[in-house]
């Protein structure tokens, strides 16, 4: 029985154990099933991903291949020996081959039209070695033998270890662009030629206009010296005035056309900047004396050396700005300021100011005034005149020299034009000199010049008449050659003291003629001074004249005095004497001498300007003198100081040295408040009597002018 019980228990245990085992097995089976399912899905996803990637890769490749083919880029793969491994469709189309034809060919031999290509191909190994890119433009030969321009960018092909195994060249057909470039260059050249022609036309025109103008102005000079009725004199004055205005306008237009053609010329020569500016101050003080304006100068003593620059252009800039200031100012002050900004690399950078107490410029018009033919207001032209060219020229000149110009202004308060200009520092200290005593020189010269024998070479009949008239007045002997060829013939036979030579002449121009004379050892005039006469004031032309052997040049139209001075200098007939002001400042004797040569010299022979100045003097001086008397009577010393200060430059302008000194003495004494009244009284009396003596003399001079 016990055994049965044990067996029962064993069976029971084994049943439980089996169930437990079955449960575990099934559970494990399910786990396995799950794992298997997961693996299957994972596998499927992996396959899907791989397929997806392959499709994407193919699409991307197709996209780039399509892109490259559509971009008209030709790709070419070569090995290290230039053997073509693969030619892409684009490259094949570019060169007229099929890809199959190119495969296996040597690229160097197939496409090489010339050396430059071969050279590039020889460089390829370097590119490969350096593992870098390069781009070049070369010509290659197509299948049909024609040449095309391609832009090649080559990059090395490397194996997995980075060793070069060949190169990939990307070619872009730039033949069209090259053709366009060439056409563009041609078009540019044509345009430049056209512009040059236009420039030449302007120069020629200005010459053509100047030549007859020269005759017109010259003839009026001569006409003025004849016996004329008052009415005729008036007409001639008007003629002169119009002629001068017209010349001014032509000069401005010529300057402007030079500026526009980028041919503005600046001379470089030594000059005394202080002298130039103080001359301008005196001249404009004189000019505005009929108005209640004083012209002041504030010159920085730091600018102590002679400068190197273009005095004519500098003068032109100042004259323009001062002209404007005096035109638009009725009373108050016009000031000139020169201030050294910095001294650097042997250059003075100087800031100049021209300020006035005139009508001013409205804020919105400030930009306008520097533009061609523009004035702040259309009414300005009617009321004040002018062409609107002046400031444009000034601005261009200043900027051409690397400077700048600006304006500050308030309506009815005044304007301040500031400009900065560089000058070369010569290193030579400037000495302030008084003008040459022209009168004595002129007397001496006239005597010497009257012995001269002169050859005039001039094709224009009017000019011939003008110059010969001047020479007749000077009592010179002269011959006339109508052109260069004639001049050459005459000069071979006769010896002259001087030749006056026009530059522009038909057949043989002045430069050629001069060159022929200078190089002919048998010509007796080989070393005789030649003065060029030119209407075109181009620096280049003047340089050409000097290079050909001319000694100097004179710009038409010119005044007889300027010509005389030139001749005097060239023939060494005068020695220029200069005296410092201090030497004469002690002289107080009431001598009366009047000398208009200072004004003539200053204005480069502008007699109209001189006349204007003299008339102003005659009109303004009595008023100033009565003011002076009144102030003295009422012991208003400040007023006495002011009037004498104003009068001083006026005497100086007319060469009235003694009166200038007396005015200076009054000025000095009243300023320092160290005087006795009788002394001043005497000085005023002396000045007054001298002035009264001067008026008729001046009037007489004007008549004979």
């Amino acid at each position, binding site marked *: 029985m016990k055994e049965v019980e044990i067996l029962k228990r064993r069976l029971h245990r084994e049943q439980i154990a089996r169930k437990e085992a079955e449960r575990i097995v099934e559970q*494990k089976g399910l786990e396995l099933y799950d794992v298997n399912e997961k693996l299957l899905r994972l596998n499927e996803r992996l396959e899907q991903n791989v397929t997806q990637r392959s499709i994407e890769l193919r699409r991307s490749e197709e996209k780039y291949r399509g892109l490259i083919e559509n971009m008209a880029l030709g790709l070419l793969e070569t090995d290290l020996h230039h053997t073509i491994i693969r030619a892409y469709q684009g490259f094949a189309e570019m060169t007229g081959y099929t890809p199959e034809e190119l495969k296996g060919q040597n690229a160097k031999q197939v496409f090489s039209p010339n050396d430059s290509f071969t050279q590039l191909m020889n460089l390829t190994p370097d590119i490969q070695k350096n593992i870098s890119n390069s781009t070049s433009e070369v010509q290659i030969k197509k299948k049909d033998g024609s040449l095309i321009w391609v832009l090649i960018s080559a990059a090395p092909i490397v194996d997995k270890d980075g060793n070069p195994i060949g190169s990939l060249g990307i070619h872009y057909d730039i033949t069209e662009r090259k053709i366009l470039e060439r056409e563009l260059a041609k078009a540019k050249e044509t345009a430049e030629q056209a512009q040059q022609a236009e420039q030449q036309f302007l120069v020629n025109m200005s010459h053509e206009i100047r030549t007859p103008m020269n005759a017109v102005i010259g003839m009026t000079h001569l006409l003025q010296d004849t016996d004329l009725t008052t009415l005729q004199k008036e007409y001639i004055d008007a003629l002169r005035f119009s002629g001068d205005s017209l010349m001014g306008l032509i000069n401005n237009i010529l300057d402007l056309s030079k500026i526009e053609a980028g041919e503005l010329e600046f001379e470089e020569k030594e000059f005394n900047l202080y002298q130039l500016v103080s001359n301008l101050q005196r001249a404009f003080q004189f000019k505005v004396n009929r108005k209640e304006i004083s012209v002041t100068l504030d010159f920085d003593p730091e600018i102590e050396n002679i400068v190197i620059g273009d005095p004519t252009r500098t003068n032109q800039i100042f004259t323009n700005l001062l002209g404007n200031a005096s035109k638009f100012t009725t009373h108050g002050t016009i000031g000139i300021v020169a201030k050294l900004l910095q001294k650097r690399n042997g250059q003075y950078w100087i800031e100049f100011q021209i300020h006035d107490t005139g009508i001013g410029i409205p804020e919105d018009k400030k930009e306008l005034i520097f533009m061609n033919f523009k004035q702040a207001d259309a009414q300005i032209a009617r009321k004040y005149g002018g062409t609107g060219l002046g400031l444009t020229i000034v601005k261009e000149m200043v900027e051409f020299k690397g400077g700048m110009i600006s304006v500050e202004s308030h309506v009815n308060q005044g304007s301040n034009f500031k400009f900065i200009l560089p000058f070369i520092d010569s290193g030579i200290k400037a000495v302030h000199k008084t003008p040459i005593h022209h009168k004595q020189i002129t007397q001496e010269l006239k005597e010497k010049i009257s012995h001269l024998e002169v050859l005039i070479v001039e094709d224009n009949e009017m000019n011939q008449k003008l110059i010969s008239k001047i020479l007749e007045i000077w009592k010179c002997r002269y011959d006339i050659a109508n052109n260069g060829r004639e001049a050459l013939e005459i000069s071979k036979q006769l010896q002259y003291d001087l030749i006056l030579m026009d530059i522009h002449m038909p057949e043989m121009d002045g430069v050629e003629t001069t060159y022929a004379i200078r190089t002919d050892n048998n010509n007796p005039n080989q070393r005789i001074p030649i003065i060029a006469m030119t209407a075109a004031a181009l620096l280049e032309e003047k340089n050409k004249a000097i290079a050909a052997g001319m000694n100097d040049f004179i710009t038409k139209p010119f005044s007889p005095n300027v010509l005389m001075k030139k001749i005097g200098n060239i023939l060494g007939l005068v020695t220029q004497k200069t005296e410092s002001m201090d030497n004469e400042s002690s002289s107080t004797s009431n001598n009366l001498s009047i000398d208009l040569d200072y004004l003539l010299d200053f204005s480069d022979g502008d007699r109209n300007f001189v006349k204007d100045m003299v008339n102003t003097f005659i009109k303004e001086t009595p008023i100033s003198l009565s003011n002076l008397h009144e102030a003295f009577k009422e012991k208003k010393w400040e007023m006495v100081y002011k009037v004498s200060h104003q009068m001083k430059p006026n005497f100086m302008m007319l060469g009235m040295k003694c009166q200038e000194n007396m005015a200076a003495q009054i000025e000095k004494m009243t300023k320092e408040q160290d005087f006795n009244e009788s002394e001043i009284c005497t000085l005023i009396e002396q000045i007054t009597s001298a002035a009264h003596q001067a008026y008729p003399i001046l009037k007489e001079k004007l008549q004979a002018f």
Partner: protein
Amino acid sequence: MKGVVFTEFLEMVEASHGYEMVDDLINESDLSSEGAYTSVGTYDHHEIIALFSTLSKKTTTPIPILFRNFGKYIFDVFARKYTFFFSNSDNAFDFLESVESYIHVEVRKLYPDAELPRFETKRVGNTTLEMMYYSNRSMSDFAMGLIEKVLEYYNEDANVERIYLTDNGSQVQFIISK
């Protein structure tokens, strides 16, 4: 503890003492599983201790000797069932080294919940292998029987010295020297 240990133990008892002894052990050992073991199951290791204690009392044989004998017995079962574990080694030292580095790794893959002892082996010269035993079950006798059987399996003659590093027998050093 894996069910195979229980089923093999009871088989051994049945073979030497008959099923009546097995029945007695189960009845007298107060087992929560009630002695219904399957080799693929997992059971509380206290049950094996209880079964060994009961067997020790009934046969008046010390527990360490029973464990050692059981180790020898189960080696044959393993050698029969898992021959592929033996094909990688051609000597006892190589095989003993592979217990931790290979066999236990594979066992854990099959039975992630298996609680196995940890061995560290170190060769000292060509003839000696030091083998550290770590286990909270403190069944180094069982291991001793297995080691002896391994030597026998590879026909190698070696002296197995055992040094207890802790009082409770959880860390033991075997020095196997030929």
